[in-house]
Structure formats: C-alpha cells, structure tokens
C-alpha cells in the first residue's frame, strides 16, 4: 500500500475566499482614530436597544425566550439516553422482559443484575432486577441488545435523589400499569428499523 493518501493533509475541496477586511492600523495616530470611531459609533446604542426591547417583551408582553427550568422543559430527542424504562406489552400489560440476561452480559460497567426463576406457569420470571446507577455510563448497549425492546432509555435525565436506589428497581423503571396507554415506543438505538416489515421472511406453513 502506498502512503500517498496520507501525505495530502488538505481535506475536501479547497475553496477559500479572502474577506475584504480593513487594514490594521500601524501608526499610533491610526490606532487612536480607530478606537475613537468604534467607541462613538451608534452600534453600542443599537445593542443596548435590542436588550431593552427584549426586556420589555419578556417582562410586559409575555414573550420570554428563556426556558423556565424546572417549571418548563425542552423536548428532547427520542434517541436521548437517560434513566432506563421497562416497557410492558400493550395487549396484556405483562412486562416485556423475558429474563434472557443479555443486558446483564453486555453491560460494560457491570451494573445490571437480575435474578430469575421458574414460575407456576412454567415461564421464566424475573424475580429481581436492578441497575446500579452509580456505575451506569448510559451507553445504551442494554437497550440495543434487548431482543424484546423491553429495556429502553427514557427521557428522565434528572438523576438527583436522596437515595441512589430510588431509580434502580424493576418496579421503578416499569411503566405504571395505569399509564400503559401513554407508553411510547422507543425510537432510539436498537429500535426496530422503519422498514422492518419488508425484511421479514415467511416461515413455510403448508399444513
């Protein structure tokens, strides 16, 4: 392999334009003139007017641009990775987690742990599930690897609490059953692609 490609360090096409700037004054008189002209130009008052106008707008006309956090919050991207959520199946309301343990396995900071057992219905039941948020680096691998889209990242980024444990149990992360109708499908990393239906192959079912 030749090394030529590494020797050209100009990235992209070179279309630079030189700006038509004033010449920098060199004499003491020239510098003095520049300072005086800049100081007494009306630009200063233009700036002060803008500030004054916006103050009037914000205080008296109700046109405030500042987000009134924590009373107001900005919408965030569906791909935002904050505190995890555990989703439920929309039809039955049962939690989606099947206890496969892939999130536990893939977690690079080793913060996910689960206990599972054989339940009365011969199903695998998740008896305990916890994420240690002191260790979690919100990398999103757990959501990506989850085959059931059961663990996802939610928009809840305010992670201050009196106790670390306040977020970390299965029940805390699980969609409350009465808010099932408000459950949003996760759009972030690992979610089903928009053209997923096209990629599904049929299993032969001849009988």
């Amino acid at each position: 392999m030749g090394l030529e490609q590494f020797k050209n360090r100009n990235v992209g096409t070179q279309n630079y334009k030189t700006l038509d700037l004033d010449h920098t004054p060199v004499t003491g008189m020239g510098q003095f003139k520049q300072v005086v002209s800049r100081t007494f130009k009306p630009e200063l008052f233009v700036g002060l007017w803008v500030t004054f106008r916006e103050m009037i707008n914000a205080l008296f006309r109700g046109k405030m641009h500042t987000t009134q956090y924590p009373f107001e919050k900005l919408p965030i991207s569906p791909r935002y990775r904050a505190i995890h959520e555990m989703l439920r199946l929309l039809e039955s309301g049962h939690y989606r987690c099947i206890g496969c343990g892939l999130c536990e396995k893939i977690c690079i900071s080793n913060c996910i742990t689960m206990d599972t057992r054989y339940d009365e219905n011969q199903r695998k039941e998740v008896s305990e599930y916890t994420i240690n948020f002191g260790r979690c680096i919100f990398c999103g691998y757990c959501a990506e690897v989850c085959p059931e889209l059961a663990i996802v990242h939610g928009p809840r980024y305010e992670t201050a609490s009196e106790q670390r444990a306040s977020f970390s149990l299965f029940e805390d992360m699980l969609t409350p059953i009465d808010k099932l109708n408000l459950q949003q499908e996760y759009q972030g990393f690992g979610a089903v692609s928009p053209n997923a239906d096209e990629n599904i192959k049929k299993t032969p079912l001849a009988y």
Partner: protein
Amino acid sequence: MSEVQTVENMVSITIDGVEYKAKEGEYILNAARANDIFIPAICYLTRCSPTLACRICLVEADGKQVYSCNAKVKEGMEITVSTPDILAERRAMMEVYDVNHPLQCGVCDQSGECELQNYTLELAVDSQSYTIQDTKREATNWSSVLHYDPGLCIVCERCTTVCKDMIGDAAIKTTKRGGASLDKAWKDEMPKDAYAMWNKLQKSVIAPSNGTEHTNCSDCGECVAVCPVGALVSRDFVYTSNAWDLKKIPATCAHCSSGCQIYYETKPASIEDRTEKIFRVTNEWNYVSLCGAGRFGYDFENRTATKDATAFAATIEAFKKAKVINFNSVITNEEALMLQTLKEKLGVKLINREARAFQRFLGFYSEASGQSLYTLDFKEVMASDFVISVGSSLRNDNPNARYAFNNVQKLNKGAGLYFHPVGDTLVPTFGKNIEMFTHKVGHEEAALLFIIKLFADQDKLPDSVKEQLESDFVELLGGDTAKFEKAFEKMMKKKETFSLMVGEDLYFHEKAENLAKLIAVLEASSEVKVAMIPPKTNSLGVALICDLDDEAEGYTIGYNESGDFKLSALGDGDLDMPAMNQQEGTLTNMHKRVTPTNAALEYNGYVLNDIIREVASAPKETIMWTEHLPVSKGFKAVEFDSLPNHYTNDGVEHRGYLLESISREAKEISVDKFDDSNALEGEIAYRCNPQRQFNDFSDKAHQIFEGFGLYASPAKAETLGSKVEVEFANGKLTLDVIVDERMEGDIVAIPDFKSAENIYELFAGSRYQTVTIKEV
C-alpha cells in the same frame, strides 16, 4: 489412555488429502477428533455405542457414504468430510431439526451452549424448506431432580444412550410422540438420509421407560449433562442462570473414590447476597460420567466459618495434649501428609477406620504380589471384555465401578460375574452374559477360589490353592452347576481381557489376608487382573501417606469425626474447617491418579495448615505440601501449580499424574484352607450407603434426598413394618424402614454416611453383622 499406541495397532488414513495415523478398529469420527479434524456430529457419545439418530456425521470413505460414528478406520482409507451431496444432506437435516423448534433461545437454559444453535450456524441454515404441524408437548418433572421439556427436545437420544450404555439404568427410552405424520411427498423431494432422520424424529419423544410419568433411576443427572439443547435440565437449575454468568472452577469430586473431574459453576447468590454460590456441577461428559452425589451434592460448604481467635487458641491447646487424631477419608493428600507429620513430630496416633482396612488389605496384597498398587485402573477395567466383581455392592459402593461393569457388557460385547451376598435386580439387566451369585456372607474366599478354578493355569498354582479347587463352588455359592457351565461356555467366547474388581467387603473381612493372597495367586496364574475400589474418597491417598493405627486411647481430636475436640467442615465442631469445595489440594482416586482440586467458594476461617504451623512447622500455603508427598509410595515431587487438569480431544486424561507402582520381591504364597462353616447365619445387617449418599457432606446437600434409615428389599420391608429397632452386639439403633426396590433377599442395609451415628463402632470392624430387628 492406558492402551499403548504401538506401531502395530496404528493404521494410516487420509482425511481430505492429509495423511493421519489412527488406532486400528477405531471409528472414523474418533480418529478424526483425535487428529483435531472437525466432523459435525450430534448424537454420538464417546464411550457409548453409536445411536445413528442424527446422521449428520455422514462422510465419504473410499467413495461410499458412511456414518463416521459407526464406520471403523481401515488401512489406507480415504475420507472426505464434505462433498456437495453430503453438504446438502447435512443442511436438510439441520433444517429439519429447526422445524417447529421453539424460538425461545432467549430464555432457554442452554443459553447459547447449544449444539442445535451451533450447527444451525455452522451449516449456515438461513431459510426453512420443510414444514409439519407441531404437536403439543408439555414439560414434566421426571424425578426429584430431572426436568424435561419435550418441546425443546430434538430426540438425538444421547440421554437414552448414556443411560443405557454408561449408567446402566436404562430408565428412559424413546416413545411415540403422536401428532401429524410425515407427508410421503417429502420422500422424493428431500435428501434420503434427512428424510429417514425426520421420519424417525417426528414419531418420537423421550419418556421414562417404566411406562409411568416418573423415572425409577439413580438420579445421576448424566442425561442432563449430555443434552445438546435445553430439553433436559435439573429442576433446581431451571431458569435460574445463564451459562455465561457462571464461573467454571475445575475440581475433583469429593464424594467417593472415583475422584471424577467436575466443574463447580459459581456466581453471586442473588442481588441482595453477593457471596459466591455454586449453581450447578458440570463435567467433561464425553470422558467422565458422574453420579447423582457428584452432580447434585455440591452445596456442602462451611458457610459460617470466621477467624475465631479464641477457638483457634483452644485448638492449639487441644493439639498439644492430643493423643489421637480420628479422621476420615474426605481429606486431601496434603492434609493427610500434615497429619502424618504431626504423628512423626508429636507422636499422636492416627485413626481412620476405612483407610486402615484398605491399607492392611493393600499391604497383604503387595506382600504377596510384589507390587505396591493394584494392577488395573478402572479405565482399563472399562476396556476389558470380561469383568468380575467380588465383595462390593456395585450399585451403592462406587458409581464408576458400576459404570465400568455396565459399559463392558454394552460396548465390548462383554460378560460379567457378580458375587455378592445382597441380591440386586439391576446388575443382571446390564447385559445378557451376566451370572450373579448371591452367596452366603463369609463365602468370599470361595468366590475367589472359584474364579481361580475358572481362569487360572493349574500348573502355576501353589499347592495350598490347588488342593482346595475340588469342591463344587457353583452349588456352594448358590448357583446351579449344569446351568452355569452352559452359560459360562457362552460367556467365554471371544474374550481376551479379564478384569476383577474387589470392594470394601474384602477389606473388612475377617480373613482379609487370605483373600489378598488369593487375589495375588489369581493374578500370577491367569489373565485376570485386579482393580480395587478404595472404600471412601481419598482412602487410597491416606493409606499410602499415613501410618495409621488400629487402636488408640486418650484425648482425641476428631476431624469431621467424633472426638473430645472436634474440627469440622460441617460447621458443628469446636473449630471450623473448610469443606472440600473450599479447599485446594490433591486427591488420590481409584484410577491411581493424583488429581488437583481447586477452591470454588470463599472460606474465611482457619485451615489445618494454620494449626500445624502453630504446633509443629508448616509452609505458608496448604498446596506447598504437594511436592513433599512421599515419592517412596509412588507420588511425584511436583508443585501443585504445575499439575494439568484437562482432557484432550482423543480422550486422554491430563489431570495431575498417575501414581507409580513400586515393585519388590514377592513372597511365596501359602493360603489358608477355606472353611465353609464360617458363613454368617440369621438376621444380617450390611453396612452400605444408599445410591447418592457417601458422607456427611453429600447428606448436607439440598438436592440429595436419600435418608438415613434401614434399607430393605420390598419383600423384606413388608415383614419389618415402618420403623424398627436394630440391636447389635454393642448397641442399638432406631431406624425408619426404607424400601430399595432394587434390593433382593433378606439382608438389610444400614448406611454409614452420618459420622455422628458411629456405625463403624456398631459393625465392629466388619461390613456384615448379625442383628436382631424388632418393629417399634
């Protein structure tokens, strides 16, 4: 492997154009595996007969398609692993296996260690061409430990094969599945072998062979080990952990003298409790088979131990005034050497009843034969084609001896003779060529004389033996002479290698010396070679390392045994000791092999080495004793950390090292005259553990359910009632009567696995005792 690979028994074969050496008469698959060539195969198990259920090991040998698990290598054979035809067959077979297989890999207990998954990927199956209506199959529990999910089962029949060929229970079989039958149109459309495989698969499912819902077996769990998918799992393990979460710790099983290779698989117990816990035990199932105690009796660790300085100081005081140390064989070689050092330095006496009996017997034997150790190991027994068992309750004493006896019948077209006073209904089912002698207690010498009469070269016998061979032993041992002679003629056909297994009955026999001499005579004058079953876990190691005493009196320290001061790994003594799954060290097993074991679980207390350091002198770590094991007894001066612990693909065991047998001048043998009036009469009790119990540790495990009671045959149990008082000459016991359906006859078995019950005292140096049994 024990067989010497000489130039004569090697043939050369060509696999995919490359020339390899293979053992003559070996299956192509095994020859390929030994040379690190991969041939796909699902249903074949090394050491068992080919099942031909999966047919995936199809190869081309000399231009013909053969199943490599079933075809033997020939000189100059040319083998092609894959041809386009074979690849098409294999792909069709894998597609068939995937038909209706539940897509629940996410929760399956096999969790990726799945051969179905592996081969589906290996053969790049990315679409499905075949369909059939699924049949509803419900998951069931076969026994207290076995869980079967037929939905996941691919009917490779490995479980049934291992149960029949290795374990001998034959407790499971294939049975009718019901449901849709295969469309005949497939026959023309799909590859031939794949169709035949599917046709059989679609009709079958695995079920207990006794026709009920539950297996009547020894609950060894070997079927669970060999299952390539998640269909068979132990009930305790179902849905509790993924394979990848578990840490494998290579170890040696501590329950009996088989010293099987095992892995303890551990991970933190739960979210709240982060201490390591053993979740299951696995093994290299192609090369070693476990019993139920080994597989399920793993949680016997000493959890409560802490460094209790006052208890430790009291221990040092106790050791300073101790006259006797009473211990058992559940102990590592290193600890045995420590105790021997104590004896040498402080002059304490060492008491270990089972190892002492074995030591004496081995001593008598080596005096008469000129070898320090018995001739065969049990792998060689398994390779023989005529096997004899004397003085051991095969089903209960040692699982590996039983598997060897069974495997000889199934795989080597072998024959067997079984001499034992307690009748057994299982042993005769191992094969067609088995003669069972249920002789009287005390007639063990007659059994050995009879074997000498059958196999020995009369000219080589000493006179004292020769003159005793006149009598009709068949009649004496409870057989029918005419019938036996006819059967024996058939048994001897095409037999080349003969092995004799002797067990604990002989070591505890009144005439042990004479029996040992007879065995030496038999070996010297015939083709029959002997293997001995050491009575408990490390009895062989203890017998070689320690200079044991017969009787002792005075202040006694009991190590896992009773004493004035008790060291206990069960957590009930004056000072805690680590259990075998918390220790590292070596064990000497019945294969005459010194095998390493590692600590699976944390231990926070004091160990024997700490005590020895205080009272005598000791190195920093227990394992530093390993290199000081007595070379004069056959041990090697190697460091613990340099001991290997694995098997290679050709099945060669690389675990620790083999003991060396040291030869010396054999003494002239003169045996005592056999007196047939010595037989015990009346109500007889036999010291014998139930199948999955060996010691206090197996008893502590939560998946071992066999209780401490009086075991009796169904007929005998009926006459006894439900609870009895057993009166010995020097004590009595009250025991529940437990029916052992595979026992026969009137002798009852009393277990010795609870050391607190002092069963050895009651039996007073013998394994049989006359007793009075009263219902209470």
